[in-house]
């Protein structure tokens, strides 16, 4: 297993795609955090001056603004770690390296387990970089606007720290998904469509219907946000509330394992030719 992990690690560091995605995520998250810090601080500030907000939702407290901004990586940036995770598996099929990989490690269980475990390290890296960029840019903009940054507030920092954990788990979910859908192009398209469009819409729509509100909390994106305890969607009043942090973690891990298991029993069980 150690050898299999070393192989997986080398597979990753000998290619360039991951750091292109990492840099993109860093830039994108810094940009989003800056913009959102500006917009949300402005909105919550507007409430203070008595001007009615256009949003029907209750206004955010400055602390909520900080938490929401600092965990934007989990709310909006998780697409990067999930795609990196998926590519780790789909790349094997795209470049047919699945053949030498399985020649070196004929046990497909070990192969899959090594892929998932090795993705934890990558996920941590994406989590740390993504969260740091979000917090850095967000706090900088809040400070420039003269708003409190709450960088010494334990609950806010805890949320930011848990965002690293959430992004890490997202990478493992990506590996699971890539195992189920090994066609690289299809996997990326489905992931983009689901994370950027389908799930946000589902969360907003389900959040409006009282009986289905509970269901929306179990969607993967909501579970990811739940881990951090702060939600861009919930706090902005667009979607229902969140599960407790530990439950969010279990739900997201559950997605990773279920997807991987489904992939193991279907795609990864087939003949490799």
């Amino acid at each position, binding site marked *: 297993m*150690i*050898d299999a992990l070393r192989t997986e690690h080398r597979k990753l560091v000998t290619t360039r795609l991951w750091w292109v995605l990492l840099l993109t995520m860093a830039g994108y998250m810094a940009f989003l955090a800056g913009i959102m810090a500006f917009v949300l601080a402005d909105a919550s500030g507007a409430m203070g001056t008595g001007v009615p907000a256009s949003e029907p939702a209750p206004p955010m407290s400055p602390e909520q603004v900080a938490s929401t901004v600092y965990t934007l990586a989990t709310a909006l940036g998780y697409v990067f770690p999930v795609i990196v995770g998926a590519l780790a598996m789909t790349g094997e099929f795209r470049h047919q390296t699945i053949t030498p990989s399985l*020649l070196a490690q*004929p046990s497909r269980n070990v192969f899959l387990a090594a892929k998932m475990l090795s993705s934890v390290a990558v996920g941590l890296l994406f989590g740390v970089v993504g969260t740091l960029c979000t917090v850095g840019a967000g706090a900088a903009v809040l400070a420039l606007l003269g708003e409190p940054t709450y960088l010494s507030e334990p609950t806010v920092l805890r949320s930011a720290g848990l965002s690293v954990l959430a992004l890490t788990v997202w990478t493992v979910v990506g590996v699971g998904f890539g195992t189920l859908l090994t066609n690289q192009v299809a996997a990326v398209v489905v992931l983009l469509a689901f994370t950027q469009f389908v799930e946000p819409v589902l969360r907003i729509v389900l959040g409006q219907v009282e009986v289905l509100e509970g269901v929306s909390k179990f969607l993967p994106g909501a579970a990811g946000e739940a881990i951090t305890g702060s939600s861009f969607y919930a706090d902005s009043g667009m979607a229902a509330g969140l599960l407790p942090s530990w439950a969010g973690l279990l739900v997201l891990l559950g997605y990773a394992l279920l997807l991987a298991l489904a992939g193991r029993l279907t795609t990864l069980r087939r003949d*490799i*030719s």
Partner: protein
Amino acid sequence: MVAVDHLTKTFGAVRAVDDLTFTAHPGRVTGFLGPNGAGKTTTLRILLGLVRATSGRATVGGRPYGELRRPMRSVGAALEAASFHPGRSALDHLRVYAPQVGVDDARCREVLDLVGLTSVADRRVGGFSLGMRQRLGLATTLLGDPGVLILDEPANGLDPEGIAWLRALLRHLAGEGRTVLVSSHVLSEVQQTVDDVVIIARGTLVHQSSLAELAALSEPSVRVVSPDAERLHELIASAGWTDRVAQNGSPGVAVLRRVSAAEIGARAFAAGLEIHELATREVGLEDTFLRLVGERPDGGAPKGGAR
């Protein structure tokens, strides 16, 4: 030793491999031959645990590939679809698998040197020619210094110089007591390399023997060239010889079987026919091969083959 025992693989209604049994022995290069689509690659993939057999067994040293510990130390395999990540360098490709083979970077460089890729060790595989990829595939198989080598069409994409190099390398590896199994769809490509032949067609075994025994199956033929095509063919017809290229050969050229060059020369001389060439072709090994796999009109026609 590589042993395939009553192996069958069906894809839907197609029997890609049909009750195939053969063995490849240590110290010998075994040619695994058959036309494209005969089931060679499927057989090799079953042998390597990549494809599941419908029935039967395929083992290396008595054990299925999946049960080998550190399989790349026992078996080195390069399959036709040589598969590399285009963004990885040649050295990195080997380094990726090295931990599971249980070797270090020095060994990776050593095998690159062995296949003549040292100068491009740090270049990305994406820019490699087919021949270079074949060499890198071969380097991968040698990484674990295995006792068994399984190579699917290793000569594809190699230039004549490369083929000569490959031939020498395979002979050398077998000379060290290794079992070498090489597939090819052209006998002539491996004719000078192999000791034994296993010939399959449509998934079934059609012939297994040493190369020498296969050669014994072949009949010598005599090539005759005359400027007077018409009279040459009159002579052939009157003597009752069989001309194997009569239909599609150039006029004035005939390839005759079951007759000696001396007899043809005597008859031509007696008939006053001018002859420009009269040569015995020792063994038509490729012809024998094609006859065995049923790709020639003269004899060995496939059961129910459309013609």
